[in-house]
């Protein structure tokens, strides 16, 4: 069994060796005056999978954009202690003219990794997400779930220490989404990255995470934090337990409270 940290995260301590992402009092105001985030304190430690749930338009995605460096927070400090960051977008964002393997190689290619190395990396990542046999397919020949797997594989080639997910499975059907949740958990256990996952599905949040953070509507602030006690690797059957249902209920409750 892989050693998986199940320790509950300490309440906002100072940056420790295990902290990969540390936001302190982060606020984000866009040039048009919209305040997307306010007073956000958030840490993601190694071994943690943190999920942020909130109503649409609450600035959840902005958190990721700040973490990845696509945006700069207008207030507060946003520290990220790694440069191996994976980013999975809402859409698979594959290049339609590239085959699966060429798409998976893209990021390594852009970073200047040499051909043979990145090919090996791509092959490994394709195997990991279960796309072996589809290397030569074009995106348009794939289902939505397979496109998302390709997108995951593409980020995996970077060996991310911190993996950012922006509602990646939101557009998929329920069955595909659950399958991909299981795959993602398997990868989390196997690859030991830390995850910051955005979703608006409460059950997805509880199932995937070690910690669930609830955000209120605009301007987005954190209105609740829940530690998820279920051990990793996670048994898909926990979704049908009373404890799971109760936690989903509590999170949903917090979500409703924060959404006025």
């Amino acid at each position, binding site marked *: 069994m892989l050693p998986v940290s199940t320790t509950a995260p300490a309440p906002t301590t100072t940056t420790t060796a295990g902290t990969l992402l540390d936001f302190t009092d982060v606020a984000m105001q866009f040039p048009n005056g919209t305040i997307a985030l306010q007073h956000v304190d958030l840490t993601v430690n190694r071994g943690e999978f943190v999920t942020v749930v909130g109503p649409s338009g609450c600035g959840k995605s902005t958190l990721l954009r700040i973490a*990845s*460096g*696509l945006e700069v927070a207008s207030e507060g400090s946003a520290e990220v202690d790694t440069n191996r*960051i994976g*980013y999975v*977008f*809402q*859409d698979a*964002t594959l*290049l*339609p*003219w590239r085959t699966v393997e060429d798409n998976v190689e*893209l*990021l390594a*290619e*852009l*970073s200047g990794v040499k051909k043979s190395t990145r090919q090996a990396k791509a092959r490994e990542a394709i195997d990991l997400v279960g796309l072996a046999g589809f290397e030569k397919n*074009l*995106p*348009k020949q794939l289902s939505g779930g397979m496109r998302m797997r390709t997108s995951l594989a593409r980020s995996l080639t970077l060996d991310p220490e911190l993996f950012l997910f922006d509602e990646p499975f939101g557009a998929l059907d329920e069955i595909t989404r659950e399958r991909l949740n299981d795959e993602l958990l398997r990868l989390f256990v196997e690859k030991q990255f830390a995850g910051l996952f955005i979703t608006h599905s409460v059950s997805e949040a509880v199932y995937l995470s070690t910690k669930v953070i609830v955000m209120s509507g605009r301007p987005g602030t954190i209105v609740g934090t829940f530690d998820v006690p279920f051990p990793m690797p996670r048994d898909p059957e926990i979704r049908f337990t009373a404890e799971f249902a109760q936690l989903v209920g509590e999170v949903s409750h917090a979500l409703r409270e924060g959404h006025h």
Partner: protein
Amino acid sequence: MAQSPMSMTSGEVSIAVVRARTVRAAERGRRGAKAALWILPIVVFIILIGLWYLAALYYDKVVQLSFLVPYPHQVLAVVFFPKAGLSPSFSSQLLDGLLNSTEVALTGLAVAIVIGVVWAVLMSQAKWIERSLYPYAVILQCLPILALAPLIGSLFGFNFLSRVIVTVMISLFPLVANTLFGLQSVDRAQRELFQLQGAGRWTTLTKLQVPAALPSIFIGLRTAAGLSVIGAIVGDQFFQRGTPGLGVLIQVATLRLNGPGAYAAILTACLLGVAAFLLFGWLGRLAVGKWYDFS
């Protein structure tokens, strides 16, 4: 109705019969649709030729100026059965004109592609460049080329160079506009994906924007190809020096009241445009057809 096999119950048999009927009906439908795909265009073509004959008949018998609208068979005859004694024969003049116009059109098109793509790439690099340069593309598109042509002749000589310049001016806009549209069609997330890996302008241009723009570039090219033929013919009308193209032939035939000859030259020019359109459509499908539904 064949005797039903022992293993089938009557219900199954009737389902099988219904299914067979449905399949047959579907096949009939498909065959019908396929036939319509071929037959209808031919019917339309025949109707058009018929209308042409009616018009020709009218101008021949009623107006009595048959050279204005010659009969279709006369046009074919002037190409394929030239009158003896005429030297060089009309069909060989037509072939020479066709080759010369093709040369002008392709040269102009090549120059237009280079200018158009460079222009669009520049504009795609920054909003201020786009705002500074796009108006001139629109102005170019609105220039009355016909009125300008004599001036171009005086400036650059009444021969090949001026023909090419007119061709470039006529075919440039669709290339600029379509290429720019294509370069800007890249969605934000894809751009950010590149940004996150620290990709520079050049990498983003060559690995993301240009491949993404190829379908629109080919659509622009197809339109521009047709226009380049028009450009070559228009150039001929004004610049009579140098080797004559189809435009010169059209003019000469018209002046000599050679109706069939003029029509033959005009139709040849048309067919050249259509051929160019088809050629670039085919090249487009070859280049991007695998991943883009290029129709």
